[in-house]
């Protein structure tokens, strides 16, 4: 195979790999191998009538990049809601709860510790929310990440309730 043909195939396979982001490694390897085999079969079958480069171009055109819908309406809505909730939580924690906790001498240490954990979780959650957006739907990785993100959000909500509740009990506003 000449250089031009190889570059063409490599570029195409790169696109395929990109479109399969989030799929199991084994599946991606199998798909790539199948495409390579198909191109080789096409070259073997049509080499008498067409040039190698033309065969590859035609075969790639026939195969096309599988279209995977990454952004759906539901996904965008859940992304916007998550970002809004997490931003509100982050800002209210940074500018309201944290100064109260740091300025008051009556605050137990564990409360400051769980506040710090919560802030870290919010940042991780924000990162995960953006990461999920780049994964194709219905993939195993997408489902796992969504599950982790929802769990972290619920944990944050629980911690937030505990902090607010404790502050109220202690009579600090």
């Amino acid at each position, binding site marked *: 195979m000449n250089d031009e043909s190889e570059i063409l195939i490599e570029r195409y396979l790169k696109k395929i790999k990109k479109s399969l982001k989030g799929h199991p490694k084994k599946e991606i390897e*199998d798909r790539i*191998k*199948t495409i*390579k*085999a*198909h191109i*080789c*079969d*096409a070259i*073997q*079958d049509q080499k008498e009538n067409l040039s190698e480069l033309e065969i590859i171009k035609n*075969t790639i055109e*026939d*195969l*096309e990049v*599988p279209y995977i819908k990454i952004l759906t309406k539901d996904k965008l809505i859940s992304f916007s809601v998550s970002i809004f909730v997490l931003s509100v939580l982050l800002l209210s924690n940074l500018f309201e709860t944290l100064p109260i906790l740091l300025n008051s001498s009556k605050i137990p240490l564990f409360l400051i510790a769980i506040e710090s954990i919560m802030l870290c979780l919010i940042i991780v959650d924000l990162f995960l929310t953006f990461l999920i957006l780049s994964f194709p739907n219905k993939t195993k990785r997408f489902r796992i990440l969504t599950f982790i993100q929802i769990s972290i959000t619920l944990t944050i909500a629980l911690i937030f309730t505990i902090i607010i509740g404790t502050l109220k009990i202690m009579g600090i506003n």
Partner: protein
Amino acid sequence: MILKIHIEKTFDQIIENWLNQLRKGILELAILSHIDKKGVKTYGYELIKNLKKENIKVESNTIYPILRRLEKFDLIDSIWKTKDNHPRKFFKITVKGKKILAKLKNEWIRFSKNINKFIIKEE
């Protein structure tokens, strides 16, 4: 003139779209039936060529997703074999696939018979 060309194009598009929809539904049966008929293992490129020979229009970008789906449902089995430094993924129908195929064939025969009868009666 332009309008006439546009109408004709739309007319052709309607027919083409209808045929595409029809093909999509029936292609799984055709592929499964062909793999079964072949008796021996067959691979993607060969399958496309043979189906085209039988006047069944099939594109490369359609056949592989169908083969993956059939494999996922255990209707076909696959194995990688290398000959002359050229690996190929060979497919073979499973026992479950044979059972499903027999049912699908009966359903198709019954369905097409009813449609034919209906169309002729309508005329």
